[in-house]
């Protein structure tokens, strides 16, 4: 169980990386943490002819920049639990990342790698969608920006074009006093999620002013549900109708079935986790009356 042959290239800068990717063409893949790509190569499910090692690039900043936080594509998953900027503004990154595999994997896996890999159950993709993040990608053609809602097309398929690298995730900082919640259900701790739900509630005068609910594991990419979000606006924080929101979300989608869980069970889990997430986020937003 070893990889097919390939050629190895090492990039020392972002410019060099994108130039290499452009030159080497479609059969070239960037290598960051490698803990998603290399298993596929060892299993011979992926056979890139060239690997461009981008680990020397740095690109691992987490900085507050006015109304947004910028995270570099090479931020490792283990950073979220310890980064003080992020823990204040986006507490869910620490919480959600604790569900990614296990410590050795987290020390190596990267944000850009996870987003580009686009596993349908990925926690970071879910958060990008929840927070209305923008993904900045670089290529030899320059830089472009893709809203998270348009980035994830399908399972393991993104809006990335040939030669493009995820350089940065930009997330607008939620209003102070917002309530955040994350729930994941998996067979064992760290396994791929069966269903994961994240919620963000902004409140005003004891009522929901804005609600965002995102769900991973239902379909081939993380989803939001505008109807559910609109229905929550105006509800009181004490009795937001979380149960109804859960049922509404679950009823609106036809979740996948696999060896882990039937569609029927996933639907139930969606309803249950949305309920819990709405309740928790509302409780967390309660301080901002």
């Amino acid at each position, binding site marked *: *169980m*070893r990889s*097919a*042959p390939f050629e190895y290239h090492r990039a020392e800068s972002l410019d060099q990386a994108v130039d290499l990717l452009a030159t080497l063409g479609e059969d070239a893949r960037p290598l960051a943490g490698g803990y998603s790509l290399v298993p596929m190569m060892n*299993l*011979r499910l992926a056979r890139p002819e060239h690997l461009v090692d981008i680990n020397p690039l740095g690109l691992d900043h987490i900085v507050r920049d006015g109304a947004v936080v910028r995270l570099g594509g090479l931020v490792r998953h283990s950073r979220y639990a310890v980064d003080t900027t992020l823990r204040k503004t986006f507490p869910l990154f620490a919480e959600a990342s604790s569900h990614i595999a*296990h410590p050795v994997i987290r020390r190596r896996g990267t944000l850009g790698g996870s987003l580009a890999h686009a596993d349908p159950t990925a926690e970071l993709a879910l958060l990008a969608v929840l927070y209305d993040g923008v993904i900045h990608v670089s290529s030899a053609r320059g830089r472009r920006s893709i809203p998270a809602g348009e980035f994830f097309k399908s399972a393991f398929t993104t809006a990335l074009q040939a030669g493009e690298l995820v350089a940065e995730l930009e997330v607008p900082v939620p209003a102070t006093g917002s309530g955040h919640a994350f729930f994941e*259900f998996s*067979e*064992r*701790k*760290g*396994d*791929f999620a*069966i269903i994961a739900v994240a919620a963000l509630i902004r409140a005003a005068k004891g009522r929901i002013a804005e609600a965002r609910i995102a769900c991973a594991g239902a379909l081939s990419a993380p989803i939001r549900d505008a109807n559910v979000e609109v229905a929550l606006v105006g509800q009181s924080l004490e009795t937001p109708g979380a149960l109804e929101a859960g049922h509404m979300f679950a009823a609106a989608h036809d979740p996948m079935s696999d*060896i*882990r*869980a*039937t569609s029927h*069970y996933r639907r*139930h*889990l969606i309803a*249950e*986790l949305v309920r819990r997430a709405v309740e928790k986020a509302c409780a967390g937003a309660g301080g901002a009356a």
Partner: protein
Amino acid sequence: MSRTLERPKSIGARVHRLEDPRFLSGRARYIDDIRRPRMLHLAIARSQEAHARIGEIDVESALALGDDIRVFTGADTVGLAVTANAEYPEVQFSQQPLLAQGRVRFVGEPVAAVLADDPYRAEDAAGLVFIDYENLTVLPGIAVARAEGAPTLFDGWRNNLFVERQMKGGDLAAARSAAVHTVRRTYRTHRQAGVPLECRGVVAEYDPADETLTVWSSTQIPHLLRTYISEELEWPETRLRVVAPDVGGGFGVKGQIFVEEVLVAWLALQTGRAVKWIEDRREHLIASIHAREHEHTLEAYLDGDGRLLGLQADISVDCGAYSTWPFTAASDPGMVAKVLPGPYDFGAYEATFRGVATNKCPVGTYRGVGRPSAVFSQERLMDDIAAELGLDPVDFRLRNIIRRFPYKNVLGFTYDEGSYAESLEKTRAFLAPDIAEARRTRSSDEVRVGVGFACFVEQTAHGTPDFTRRRVPIETGYESARVEMMPDGSVLVEIGLQNHGQGHETTLAQVAADALGVTPQEVRVRHGDTLTTPYSVGTWGSRGGALGGGAVHRAATEVAGKLRAIAAHLLQAEGQEIVLGAGYAALAEDPDRHIEIAHLARAAHRNLERLPEGMGPGLAALAGCDGPADGTYSNAVHAAVVEIDMNSGKLTLRRFVVVEDCGVIINPMIVDGQVRGGVVQGIGSALFEQFVYSEDCQPLTTNFADYLLPAAPEIPDIEVHHIETPTPLTPLGAKGLGEGGAIGPAAAIANAVSNALGVSVAETPLNANAIWTLIQSATSRSETGE
């Protein structure tokens, strides 16, 4: 009834393992560490279809990769096979060819052998072997395979049964008609793999200098492998050496003889070069052995007082595509039939058992073999009967449990003394607070707690008569050991038992040390190499401690006798009692008169003039120990406490308690390790490990992302308590224990879930989806007021 024991010096002590340093420092040598000059690497092109005729095998692209590439197919290995049959008329003959002969019967079956100078290239070349398939009807499971008119997996078979037989005792018809209560249930356990962490591997090399073929294999049964290869390849056993290096886990999975092992030996002879094959994880999951896919229908007959009168059982096992060597496809179903009576006292029994052929990976022996599934059914039935009769499940068991020994059970097997009732009562006492909490949360909509018990006996250390009865290729239960004391007083133990984690290098050293009056650190245990160890059937069946220990004890005792005789002579104290201990031989009556054991050893080898008249030189003995005719019976109770989130289906295993009795314990640290290790595998069987095939028998769980093993966060602290009821049937009073931990958890956990939800659990796995489905049926029943 248990008794307290007088403890000898080393037996019973928590001696740290003498073998640990090489494992901890990375010096241990496993099969992939065996490197030979000019070694070729083997990759196997395996069937991608579950059932098909094979047409052309195109090897041109593979050969085009380079001059070092060689490919062999079934055309080259005609007549060579692994043949595992039991000599009963009800058994239909089958064999697995080393390489497919025109037909494949499961995804993963070897079709072509590809050799190259390095393993990466061998894999490249194997990927370029193109096989032409003509698909045949797939038999995806028991129901389809048994259906009227189903095509047979082997030409000439009358149906798709490897075997179908009966076991019975007493008068079941009488029990049935006398019954006041009759309870009938069907239970299923699912398919899984055994998964030692080290995959299989084989290296073979012919040395023309001494005309010897050496085969290294990650195996539990080196002597049996030698005999098999010798017979199959017609190669003299005196010129065949099999070596089991350090083995990274076996659990019975490596207690089979595989086509790959014979194939590598054959290739070494064909090419004149050393050949190595190292299995990868995907191959292991789809093509080593599977286990546990059972379906049992039980009918119990009881009198008005809730006493069992009789039991009828119908047992089917999905055995996959081939019968495995040496225990055959009769092993799992036959064992269920044999062990279902369990620790309960009743006098009528009839079991029909069958092994069904399907297009899946062959089923073989994996820790516990048929027992985990048998105990699942047995103990689920006991709980279901108790529920139907309105009785407490533990009280119901106590009402029926065997209390007097020796006990001849309904099939005529004799149970030696055990602590069945005592262990059950003790376990219930330990679980009292959890039982109370389970009662309090009985109707909760949020979180429910459940407690479940599983009570079982385990036949271990089977003796020769037990195997002769089965008429399978493995005919015998004895174990032998050679013990020799060197001129410097250190001791060498050579035993054919192959150690793959059980700590034999320590436990057997403890046994020898006690008999010889030295410390375990002065005893070196050698195993695994057929050149230097006496013939053995290998390590499985929970026999190592009892039989291996027994053989070492006998041989060491013989050597000790000679030491005493020499000492008496040199101390001029003929006829007086000599005691060996702490490196000295001393007069029992006057310990000041003593002599160093090392001194005696030197005399025995080097200073023969000092020995008593007529005594020959040397200090060595070879002794055997056969298992008791019916084996010896360990007993245990497992108890599980589960917490179920009623809204999500999440099951948390809060507590797991074991009360076990394996007779005299040689090393408590090692016993605890075996029990806990087995329990965690049992937990894996119950909750996580499920091997899934599609409808057309394509394997779907082919890596560790899909086939889930229990990891540390999922496991609670496992509480282990011991009772020691010595058996008179083995030299040390020890019974077997290696498998026991794996036998009870599925039953205990399923009973705990049933307890929490008030529904009868009929099958495994109890993964999240299964729990949620059970919750649905529980809550819908409570809604309708059932």
